[in-house]
């Protein structure tokens, strides 16, 4: 794979060319006072001046509502229709952050371990991630505390680092998919030579050690810290839904008389109903127990399985939280807890 050096004009042209070719491009656009990913439509301008999109790009591979199959009743008989996986279109995620791209691997891990989820796999195989390194960050960012980097290449097909001196961009072509895209749109681009990528990246401070957090979490199940930290938590699903790693879902029925569809939709361990039995018994009856689950799952259970935290430090949950349940602040407190 190769590294290219393109001018700002070539970068703009690349996007313009893809749009002109009618590619499905999912990119950050300013909407309603926030910047968030959307499929580019005519007249949309890709956002420039922002640190992080409101949501991650995960809904390209894990949509908010996914039809798993449909059915039709004929008297006592049922006819089930598998929607198949040939209905998906190629999609380019443009300007994902390295933390988003990195999260995709963990999302994929969930849907491919033990049982291959063909719907997910098909969506993923149709997705190409063109990530952009972060030149800036804010107080919610903490990728470097969880093993990431503002210029990390993991999970991206292409990583673009715009050079802060205005001298164009470094394009790292990382996968065969990325090569395909580069061959088509960046043919003739100059080979990158002697670019110090690091100099153009945001300075994301290390706030805590994920290993230390993990060590502290062992045996912290009964700690009063959960009650203390979760007291102001309102129990909404904003943190989980904007998270690039969270994948918990619900399966629901869309019934219309004799016809219907079974649908997979997002769910969150922060909702009180998530674990509640029909009998009313709830294994996690308090917000403190649910907050504990969120933290333990991401920083103890997932690391045990994957060797890395179930969090890429994108900071979206902290930005989205209506009551400032700032995750890095809480993790810092846990790491420093006696």
């Amino acid at each position, binding site marked *: 794979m190769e590294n290219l050096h393109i001018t700002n004009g070539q970068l703009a042209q690349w996007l313009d060319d893809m749009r002109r070719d009618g590619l499905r491009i999912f990119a950050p656009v300013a909407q309603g006072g926030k910047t968030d990913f959307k499929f580019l439509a005519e007249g949309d301008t890709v956002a420039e001046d922002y640190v992080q999109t409101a949501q991650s790009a995960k809904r390209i591979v894990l949509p908010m509502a996914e039809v*798993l199959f449909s059915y039709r009743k004929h008297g006592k008989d049922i006819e089930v229709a598998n929607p198949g996986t040939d209905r998906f279109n190629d999609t380019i995620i443009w300007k994902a952050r390295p933390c988003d791209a990195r999260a995709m691997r963990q999302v994929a891990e969930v849907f491919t371990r033990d*049982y291959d989820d063909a719907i997910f796999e098909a969506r993923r195989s149709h997705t190409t991630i063109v990530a952009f390194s972060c030149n800036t960050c804010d107080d919610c960012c903490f990728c470097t505390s969880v093993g990431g980097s503002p210029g990390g290449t993991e999970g991206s097909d292409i990583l673009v680092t715009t050079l802060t001196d205005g001298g164009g961009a470094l394009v790292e072509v990382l996968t065969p998919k990325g090569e395909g895209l580069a061959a088509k749109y960046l043919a003739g681009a100059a080979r990158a030579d002697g670019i110090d990528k690091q100099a153009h990246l945001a300075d994301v401070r290390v706030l805590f050690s994920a290993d230390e957090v993990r060590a502290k979490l062992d045996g912290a199940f009964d700690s009063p810290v959960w009650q203390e930290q979760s007291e102001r938590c309102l129990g909404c699903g904003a943190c989980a839904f904007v998270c690039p790693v969270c994948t918990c879902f619900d399966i629901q029925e869309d019934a219309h008389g004799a016809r219907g569809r079974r649908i997979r939709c997002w769910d969150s361990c922060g909702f009180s109903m998530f674990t509640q039995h029909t009998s009313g018994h709830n*294994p996690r009856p308090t917000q403190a127990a649910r907050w504990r689950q969120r933290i333990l799952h991401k920083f103890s259970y997932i690391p045990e399985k994957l060797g890395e935290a179930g969090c890429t430090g994108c900071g979206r949950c902290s930005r989205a939280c209506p009551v400032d349940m700032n995750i890095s602040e809480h993790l810092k407190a846990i790491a420093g807890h006696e």
Partner: protein
Amino acid sequence: MSNKNIYLPYLMRIEKITDEAPGVKTFRLAFEDKAEGEAFNFRAGQFAEYSAFGEGECTFCIASPPTRRGYVECTFRRAGRVTTGLAKLEEGDTMGFRGPFGNSFPIEQWQGKNLLFVAGGIALPPMRCVIENALDMREKFKDITIIYGAKSVGDLVYKEKLKEWEARPDVNMVTTVDPGGETPDWKGKVGFTPTVLEQVAPSSDNTVAVVCGPPVMIKFSFPVLEKLGFKDTDIYTTLENRMKCGLGKCGRCNVGKMYVCKDGPVFTKAQLNGLPPEY
């Protein structure tokens, strides 16, 4: 990459419906596609997702034993949306079935041992599978004791099975109902299941205990077993966390480092000791 849609259920024909107790039914299900039925295998303790089309999916164990082929049975109590939908179905109707999922009872490892089954209420179905599995290979085990309790005589499920097991000379069958739940002609015991377990006092020597029931019954049965000398590694139970996918993906049944749907539902007490009490 497999093209199989893991959320797609088998279509099953309801062959027979048995009313077990108020609100409790047993369905005998046959695979609509005979080839699928013949290829289908499972182990005692595994569970499945049962679909009422139009309502959704619901999780329960496979109640019939793997040694009786050609059909599967499930027993459920009408409680929420899906079980209410299932309860409305009639013989000959079609429903969905996804499974088998989860681990199972290590019944092969129990050969040569005494077996003690302690069940409460609607938790006899998960136990029935392993009981019948054991009875179908009776000679492999030593004494078999079954202690089954329910709130009232009316709430006892599998009344025919209970009679059958009671009649067997090679099964020590003890049936009990909670105080106040007895009828004038009730011949079994009266008392809460853990209390009756203490009275029956089965020997823990070379014995495996399987306990299934409501959380409160399990909570009070464990100390009795401990008193009787059972080791935590010889006490088995099944967890019934809420589930949706059954595939270890939806996250709902995650308890500690385990997914009940994948690493369970069968756990030894020793394993439970290492899990957070979130079940």
